[in-house]
């Protein structure tokens, strides 16, 4: 809507002492959603403001009066009739954001409302019950809303936003009848006003209701406001399935959703196709259909009761954490962007990660995996595949590994001789007969007991660990076939103790 300067009506000066309608803007703004951070900038309101009349208008003309007191016509309203329970919504777009912020920032402005009757005479708005709000929205606009009742056939309302708004008389009996408004001071259903709720409007959170302190009305958000929300955090809010369904149906543009640690059984996010990040761990979720959320890059759904998780098409997925569920099939074979895969404690029998060369972390312990081809995953720094049924584990080329845990499997051979970055090696409860740790100069944690390691090999490992020169380490092993440490092994053991090592089992 365009603006144009017009001359101030000549009869305006005859209004005399205008009734000043004050607004507690500062108080209201403390609690508004999407408070912007431009407060404190003193920028004078000028004629550049572009004001939109959104709905509910029954007036002929609306003027905005800048500080200069030269009128700017901002809207020519065509609808005639009497004024009853009307709402005026002025949206000041981003181009005037600083100006809008100034209204509350300086805290000393006054807003005058008055109308012109059919004869063109100005009268101030009396006999009206009014409520108002000024919002600074995420959409970078300022919304000034008035609701009022009048039996007078108003034809004109002039909103003079000059200086010195210091106070407010918000109608305590305001009807809050206009669309997208909520009543302060009364319990509200969260599902009816989720936008208010999620933006920390919550003064009194009790189950699925909340209350906004104060009197009057507050704008609760329209379709466009919900669509403007791209990220919400509903962590640990006692949410249930039905509750989340109602809420999420409104936030159609979400890219990030956090709803962890709730009581959600079914999380219906199939329509949120813009999601890039979904964090819903620690719920009792049994059903999670994310197969069409192809924009997802981050999915954390661990510690639920999920039995089926179809991620096969989520080719942008970078982080997948689905540990501690009941998943039996996890097809990640085409997710070549994955860097983090945490799927331990499930019922997975087959895990094809052979092409996931970007993986840096793979944690798939406590499953039923019998084949795990990690031979080409040279970016891996952390691998935990313990408590599976793996018989062959080729880690020879994984020179970036710092932590390897393959305990409690069926491994006969473990070639770690080139893994010079290893700090932690846990491989107990296998059938390994030898380990070459001579080049593992960073190794300070070695647990290789319950294998087929003889006294000679154990002695050599002690010597190697001692030669590596590290302090305050831990070495646990056991001797297969009887016998005791060699002289060199015993000496190395004593030396390691003197370097602060704990040595267990030998």
């Amino acid at each position, binding site marked *: 809507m365009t603006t144009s300067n017009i001359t101030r009506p000549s009869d305006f000066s005859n209004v005399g002492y205008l009734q000043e309608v004050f607004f507690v803007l500062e108080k209201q703004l403390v609690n508004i959603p999407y408070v912007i951070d431009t407060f404190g900038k003193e920028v004078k309101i000028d004629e550049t403001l572009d004001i939109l009349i959104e709905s509910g208008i029954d007036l002929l003309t609306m003027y905005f009066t800048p500080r200069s007191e030269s009128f700017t016509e901002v809207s020519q309203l065509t609808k005639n009739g009497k004024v009853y329970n009307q709402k005026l919504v002025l949206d000041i777009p981003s181009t005037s954001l600083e100006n809008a912020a100034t209204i509350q920032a300086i805290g000393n402005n006054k807003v005058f409302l008055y109308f012109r009757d059919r004869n063109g005479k100005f009268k101030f708005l009396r006999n009206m019950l009014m409520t108002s709000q000024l919002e600074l929205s995420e959409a970078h606009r300022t919304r000034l809303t008035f609701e009022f009742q009048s039996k007078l056939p108003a034809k004109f309302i002039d909103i003079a936003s000059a200086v010195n708004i210091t106070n407010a008389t918000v109608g305590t009996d305001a009807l809050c009848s206009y669309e997208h408004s909520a009543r302060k001071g009364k319990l509200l259903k969260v599902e009816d006003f989720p936008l208010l709720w999620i933006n920390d409007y919550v003064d009194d959170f009790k189950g699925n209701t909340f209350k906004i302190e104060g009197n009057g009305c507050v704008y609760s958000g329209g379709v466009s406001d919900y669509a403007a929300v791209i990220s919400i955090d509903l962590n640990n809010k006692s949410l249930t399935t039905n509750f989340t369904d109602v809420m999420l149906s409104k936030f159609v543009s979400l890219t990030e959703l956090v709803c962890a640690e709730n009581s959600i059984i079914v999380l219906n996010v199939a329509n949120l196709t813009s999601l890039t990040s979904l964090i819903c761990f620690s719920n009792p979720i049994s059903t999670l259909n994310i197969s069409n959320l192809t924009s997802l890059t981050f999915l954390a759904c661990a510690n639920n009761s999920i039995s089926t998780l179809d991620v096969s098409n989520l080719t942008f997925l970078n982080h997948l954490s689905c540990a501690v569920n009941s998943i039996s099939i996890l097809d990640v074979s085409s997710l070549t962007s994955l860097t983090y895969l945490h799927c331990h404690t499930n019922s997975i029998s087959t895990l094809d990660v052979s092409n996931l060369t970007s993986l840096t972390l793979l944690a798939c312990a406590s499953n039923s995996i019998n084949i795990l081809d990690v031979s080409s995953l040279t970016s891996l720094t952390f691998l935990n595949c313990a408590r599976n049924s793996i018989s062959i584990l080729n880690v020879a080329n994984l020179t970036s590994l710092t932590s390897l845990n393959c305990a409690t499997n069926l491994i006969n051979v473990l070639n770690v001789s080139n893994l010079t970055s290893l700090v*932690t090696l*846990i491989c107990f409860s296998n059938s390994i007969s030898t380990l070459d740790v001579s080049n593992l100069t960073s190794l*300070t*944690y070695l*647990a290789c007991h319950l294998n087929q390691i003889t006294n000679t090999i154990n002695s050599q490992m002690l010597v190697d660990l001692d030669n590596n020169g590290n302090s*305050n*380490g*831990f070495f*646990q092993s*056991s001797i297969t076939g009887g016998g005791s440490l060699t002289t060199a092994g015993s000496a190395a*053991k*004593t030396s390691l*103790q*003197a*370097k*602060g*090592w*704990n*040595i*267990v*089992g*030998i």
Partner: protein
Amino acid sequence: MKRFKLTRIEDTDIFTLANENEVCVGETLAEGTFAEVFAFAQTLSEQPEIDLGTGDSVTIGNGIGLTDVSDAKWFVLFKDENVDTLRIDIIRTSGNEIYSLPTNVTQAYQEPLVAIFTRVHAFMLTIL
């Protein structure tokens, strides 16, 4: 405020109380001020399955008695007493396996866990 951490080597009762900047093996159980970390450590002793140990305190000198320990006992080993590089090992040997403990200690005691907590607390008051 100095910050500390309590670590534990998995599947063992080998704990280390250390300055948070120290590199320790095992998993970190708690981090924070000494009071916070110590309070957490004490909760470990309240677990029903814990063997708190009995008997008098035994001072261990020159590392003697720290090699091939086959009994179930609690030990406290002061490995570094500087508050900025603090490292105190608190260890319970299992009685099922042979333990050979660090010998690079400034002080070492074999005593019940409650006595260890008392000793560590008193010591920390002298350096904080």
